[in-house]
Structure formats: C-alpha cells, structure tokens
C-alpha cells in the first residue's frame, strides 16, 4: 500500500526559527503523536520508537530516521524506515521553507510511504485514512507550536 500526502501550512514565525525547530529532533518528536523515545545516533540519524495508528488500531514501530540534502534554512529530506512485528514501512519526506514575510513562513511538505506485511494486507482500510490524519496532524501541530513558541 502506497500513500502520498502533501501540505503547505503557513507558520507565524520567521524562516530561521522554523528551520531551527525543524533541526531540533526533540522538538520534532514532541509534535509527533505517541513518540515513546528518541535517540540521536548523530546529527542526522535518529532512532525513534513510536506508536502508529488511531483509536483502537495501534502498532508500535521502531524507526530509523535519517536526514539528508540539508540546505539550511531552506530544505531537507527525511527518510524513515520502520519495523513492527510482521510489518514494515518506508517513508520519504521533503520539507521546503518559503519565507512569506518577516514573520511568516510557508512550510511545504510532501510525504510518500509504502507499507509491507500485516499493515498492508489486513490493515490497509484501517490505516490508510489514519496515515493521512497522523501526517497532517503532525505538521499542523508543528506549525502551531513553532508559531506559539514565538509569542
């Protein structure tokens, strides 16, 4: 099952601040739902344990996150490889920041992921909508928190 999403929320903060937050893995993790732990292997590699799902449907994934093509303060690419018993997922994400004004930034993101194993075979109907909701929810929260942190 492959899913692709994208969004472009506006953030009430300057591009530099947004970039700073984006590179702060602890801050990023705090915006993601149900992150149990984050461990920085180095500046661009992270090990994350996170639950994936909504409502009753929940699977715990061990994720390897890697940042690449880092172009401060404009764009970066993130790849995620995750495993849960009987399931696996890969995701590629790009982030691009576009300054709209002194205190406004547009954050364009794309995410594409493919899932394998039980999640794909028996959980597609349950999780396809969830994946979208979670991804959008994450960026929404990120945008809001960066904006609020500023105030």
């Amino acid at each position, binding site marked *: *099952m*492959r899913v692709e999403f994208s969004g472009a929320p506006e953030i009430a903060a300057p591009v530099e601040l947004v970039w700073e937050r984006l590179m702060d893995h602890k801050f990023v993790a705090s915006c993601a739902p149900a992150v149990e732990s984050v461990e920085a292997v180095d500046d661009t590699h992270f090990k994350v344990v996170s639950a994936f799902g909504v409502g009753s449907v929940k699977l715990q994934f061990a994720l390897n996150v890697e940042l690449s093509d880092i172009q401060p303060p404009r764009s970066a690419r993130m790849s995620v490889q995750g495993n849960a018993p009987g*399931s696996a997922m890969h995701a590629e994400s790009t982030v691009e920041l576009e300054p709209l004004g002194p205190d406004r930034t547009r954050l364009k993101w794309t995410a594409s992921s493919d899932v*394998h*194993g*039980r999640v*794909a*075979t*028996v959980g597609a*109907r349950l999780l396809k909508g969830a994946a979208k909701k979670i991804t959008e929810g994450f960026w929404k929260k990120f945008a809001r928190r960066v904006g609020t942190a500023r105030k």
Partner: protein
Amino acid sequence: MGTLFGSGIKRREDPRLITGHATYTDDVKLPGLTYAAILRSTYAHARLKKVNVARAKKAPGVVAVYTGADVKERVNPVPCAWNVPNCDLKTPPHPLLAHEKVRYAGDGIAMVVAESREEARDALDLIDVEYEPLPAVVDPEMAAQPKAPQLHAEVPSNVAFTWNVAGGDADKAFAEAAVKVDLRIVQQRLQPTAMEPRAAVASFNPGAGQLTLWVTSQNPHIHRFLCSVMLKVPEHRIRVIAPEVGGGFGSKIPAYADEALVCFAAMDLKRPVKWTEDRSENYKATIHGRDHVEYVELCGTKDGAITGLRAKVYAGLGGYASTAAPGIPTILHGLMYSGPYTIPNVKGTVYGVYTTTTPVDAYRGAGRPEATYLLERLVNLYARKIGMDPVELRRKNLIAKDKFPYTVATGITYDSGDYQAALDKALSILDYQAFRAEQAKARKQGRYLGVGVTTYCEICGLGPSQVAGAVGFGGGLYDSAIVRVYPTGVVRAYIGGKPHGQGEETTFAQIVADEFGIPIENVEIVAGDTEATPQGWGTYGSRTTAVCGSAVKIAAQRVKEKAKKLAAHLLEANEADLEWRDGKFVVRGSPDQAKSFADLALMANVAWNMPAGTEPGLEATAFFDPSNFVFPFGAHICTVEVVVETGQVKILRYIAVDDCGPQINPMIVEGQVHGGVVQGVGEALQEIAVYDEDGQLLTGTMMDYAVPKASQMPKIETAHTVTPTPVNPLGVKGIGETGTIASPPTVVNAVLDALAPLGVVHLDKPLTPARVWAAIQNGKKGGAR
C-alpha cells in the same frame, strides 16, 4: 444395472458432519502435542540479511525455532512435479524455508514450535529479520519483459517455460480470413478459499522409525510420495492420513513446505507437532489460481465458420513453480483451445512467468476455465462483428454428434458428445426467442437486459497414465480399489481417491451394493489413509468417479466372479448354468438351488470347501487406467439485468445443462453443478486477488476478498443430457468442475450483451459494479473497448 445406480439417495457421510462428529486435521490431538507457527516474509522480494531467532528461542513455552539455514542441509526443496516437456522448463529450487531470498510476501522464513498455539504465535513477534528490499513485479506480462526485476538468477526474464501448441496452419488461416477479431484478456488471480484452512499434524515413533502425517490433502498418496522426497525418508516409513477434508478446489493438491516442516520438526523433536494456518495466512501461503494475461484472436468467414484461433498467454506462476503448476496453463489449457467447435487451425504460445507473488496452481477447473472463457468471449465478439446471433454462430461450429471420437487441431481426441442436444435443451428451458423479444422491449424502456450462452466441453477424468508420462506429469493417473468382503457379508471398499465433499462414500457404495445386490448399509467406503488404501493419484481433475469409481466397479466384478465360481462349486453346478438374480446365484431352472451373497461371503472366508486351486477369501484389487480422458460438455445460459445507474448486475436466470454421462446419484451431481456454477459466478462478478505494486496482497482477508455469499448468488436451474463415454466401464464423465468452467463466460457475455447498446465491447472479470459503471461512463464517451 442395479437399483441404486441413478438414485438420489441421501449421503452416507452426512450424519457425522451434521452432528459435529467428523474429524478434520486440526481436530487431531495427540499426547505431548506441540504447536508450530511459521514466520512469513513481510516483503514480496528481498534478500535476507539476518534472521535472528535468539529471543524467540528463549520465549516462554518455546521448544524449538528453525530457520532456512537450520534445515537446508537436512531436507530437499519443495518439488515441482509436472515437468512439461519441450518447453525448456526451469524450476529453480524452492527451499522449505527461505535462506537467501524471499520471493513473495508469505514465503516462510522460520518456524517456531511451542507448547501452545499462543506461545508459538507470541514467539513469532520476537524473531528479528533484516531484509534488503528488492523491487517487486506482480503482473506476469510485465515480469516477462527484459528489464523486469529478476526472481531467480537461473531464469532470465523470469520465463520458466515457453510452450507451443499448433495444429493446422493458423497463420495462413488468419492471412486468408475475411473476418478477424482479437482481445486482450486478463483472467484475474483468484484465492481458492476452501472453508477449512490447511493444517498438518505429524507424529514420529523413533523406535519404529515411523512417521505419521495427518494433512489436509486431496491426494494422500501424492503427499506421501513428495514428503518422502522432501524429508529424505523412505516412503514405506511414512503414513499419510487425510482425515475429513473441508474442501480443496485444487488448493490441497500441492505439496507445501509447511507439512514437510511439521514432519521435520516432529522427527527432530520426537514430539508430535501441529500447524494450522489462519485465513489470512491461507490467503498468502496457499496457492492461488488463474492469473493470465492473454492476447487472443479468432478468424473465420463472413457467414460465421470459424477457421482459426491464435493465443499468446502470459501465465503467472508466482514466486516458485508449485507441484502441478506448469501443466495447468499448458496441457489443461492450451490443448483445449478448440473447445466444442471444429476449428481447423490453432496456434498458441504460453509463457509461464515467475512473479513476486504467492504460487499459482490448480484451482477448480485449472486451465479449462481460462480456455473456455477466452474462446467464448472471442466467439461472441465474432458474432457481433458479422451481425450474427451468437447462438446461431455456435450451432454452426459445434462438432456434430456423429463425428465422435473427434480429434481436434491440438491433437487430442474427444470421447463422445452431442453438443447440439445440450444447447437445444438449454435454449428451450429459457425460451431464447422470447427472451430476445423481452430484451428488445426492455431496451426501449431504458432497461438493459442481456443473455449469455456458452457451449463448452472440457477435459477431465485424468488419465491415462501413459499420457501422463508423455506430458511430464510426475505420477500415474490410474486409480485403484480393494473390495474386501467380510465373513458376515458386509463389504468395505478401500479406494485410492480422497473425496472431500464430493460424496463418493455414497456413490461408490451405490456401485458396490448394486454389484452384490446387498443393502447399501452393508457397504463402507474407506479413503484417505495410505496405510489402508491402495495407491491412488488423488481427487482432482474431476477424475475420481470416472477413474477410481471404475476401479471399484472392476474390483467388485472380480469379487463377484470368484463368488460365482464358489457358488457353482457349492451348488455342484456349471458356472454357465448360474444366473444372478435378487442378490443370489441361482441355478437356471431350479430356483431353490441358490447361494446368496452372504452365504458365499461366509463360505469364502471360512474356506471349508473351496473349489480346487482357488484361494480362500473374497477380495479383489483393481487398478484402473482409462484409455482416454473424458470430455463432459453442456450449454449454460444466463440472463441479467444491468442497473446502468450503479453498474450493479442482477442475474435473472441461470440455466445449466450438463452432460456427464450416466449419473450415479443425481442429487450429488446437481450439488456439484450448483457449487461449481457459484464459484464461477464469483469469478465473473466479484472475486479478485489484488496486489499492490510492492507485491503486498491487498485482499488478504475475507473483508476484502469477496467470497460469494448466499444473498449475492442466483438460484440455478439444472438439467442434463446423457451421453456415455466408452473409456470407462461406468460410462461416466466428471461433473466437479463443469460449473466453474462454463459459468464465467456465460455471465460475462450476458452482461456485455446487456451493455452492447452503450458501446461497451469488452470488460475484464470480475464485473464488479465499480468496473461496470466505469465501463459505461467510458462507453458513453466513445472510449469503450
């Protein structure tokens, strides 16, 4: 002929089944039983970098964990047993557990054995597998392209075989033909879905060196044979028991790694081991059916005489070649391209292609549904092109009844038939002309009715063995029976076949009871235990009644001949003076001079007074090898209404006229037709296995794979004609698969007939409302094809 042959008596297997006292494989319990669970690949195609079972081994209740590396030296791969000749067949090894690569999502990687089902399942989650994902390819046509991902290093372009069939000169026929039609047809992959998932229980007696395997099998002798090969255990040390089997439809023919692993573990641990698949595991790890992409063409004259057929077929095999897989799209498909018609020129090429999907093998009909479908679609397209009624076109090309035995262009010889009679009967049941009038009237009111008519014949009753050898089938295709008479006159027949719903415990008892003039209650049919039954080659290919039933008949006749000899001896009469009347041998002209079957049973078994040179006992074994296949045939008609607004198809009537020769038990024959037709209607309207581009099966549960439900299926009207076959002593043909063979084109042609005014020319199965609606939208735009 006796009094029971032809009688629709109640089934003798039913009392245990309706009271819950039947024993299926998962019901088998043994002291010290352990439970196995198999870890299956998450990815469709990947290199295995690491399989770490350390945590699983330490988990509560775990007795053992095996990986591919652990077993590869100790067992042989899963064999492919149908080595179709002259097609450069390549069957790379199929390891019991993957150790280098996985080739479909569901490929076994490790097996846990634990003290309970729960503990075995829990431990699976503790196995750590590191994969290096490789690209997947799920479509057989795409997989055969040069740049497609490669599954097996030794199979370039994933093409396992290229098989050709030709008769006459098809290219010339096409060059000269006035009319040509062609289609690209996708015959979708199907999930067989026997209601009982597969299971295996193995027990090993180390003192005796004896292995016993209970397994969901349509052919316990084949399982014994192939387990012996996989396990390197002599065949006589293996007893295979197929207890009650909850449906097969082909999916319980093949040898699977799973039962061999269960045996391996039982021998290794010296404890019994049970494994039962879940439905979602069944959908990934049990064979699928069909999966063809076909380019097919038909040519003929302007007045509707078919002169040639050409086909190029990509047949998906999945990740490995399953037991009978190469024979399905070739021998059981390509040889049947002519169907019931006189087509002088035929040419076909079939590519067997590996894809990163669950292996494909025989599924009810196995090759013949695909052949019948492509032919019947082409015939309708041809009729449409020349503006001829499709029934008339069929009638014009059917092989006439006085032409049998008839050899078709592909070289096989049909035994017997009266195709016109079946067609006439079906048409009269419907009143075809009246329906056409109704259809015309309805169209004026904006309602879309359609009718589909199929005439078909199929090849079944597999043997003969000599042909099996010639076409590379790795076994014989005779069958066998022992008829044993006990001193009290009751009889047991031990048969090589293994019925699993088809009712032969009843029909074969009818044969035996008739032969001996005894009540059917005095006869029992024993099947499914290799320790008790003679060598058989299984229940598939609609062969059990035609082949094994004939063996039963012959064995019973042999018993009766011996009984007659004994009767003559005891009555001090000439054998020639005896006649068989009311269950007795009677001296002609002296009705009080008689010996009943029971008398003779006792005398033969006590052997106090046997004729000179005659052995005691009343028992005979017969191995029956038919002289040819049998070719049942018939005509099916379906009428439908399509709700154009929503794409929903409603079947108005379904009429099945089939000819399987004389019917031993018409009630059972009718039941086979009902079930077969519904399976084919499911194929026509709703069943499809869907993979995503990564090779993940998206129809992995019954929530997504649309097994037909009662409310979705039509009522079926059945009728028959009776044309005996000369190739077996019962005169019978098979009926187990005809419904599934005939119904998909019948339904699809009916729907396309309804949609004809909307510009829809072709549409691939299954005709779900979503697909029909989309086709109508496309047709409105003039883009239909």
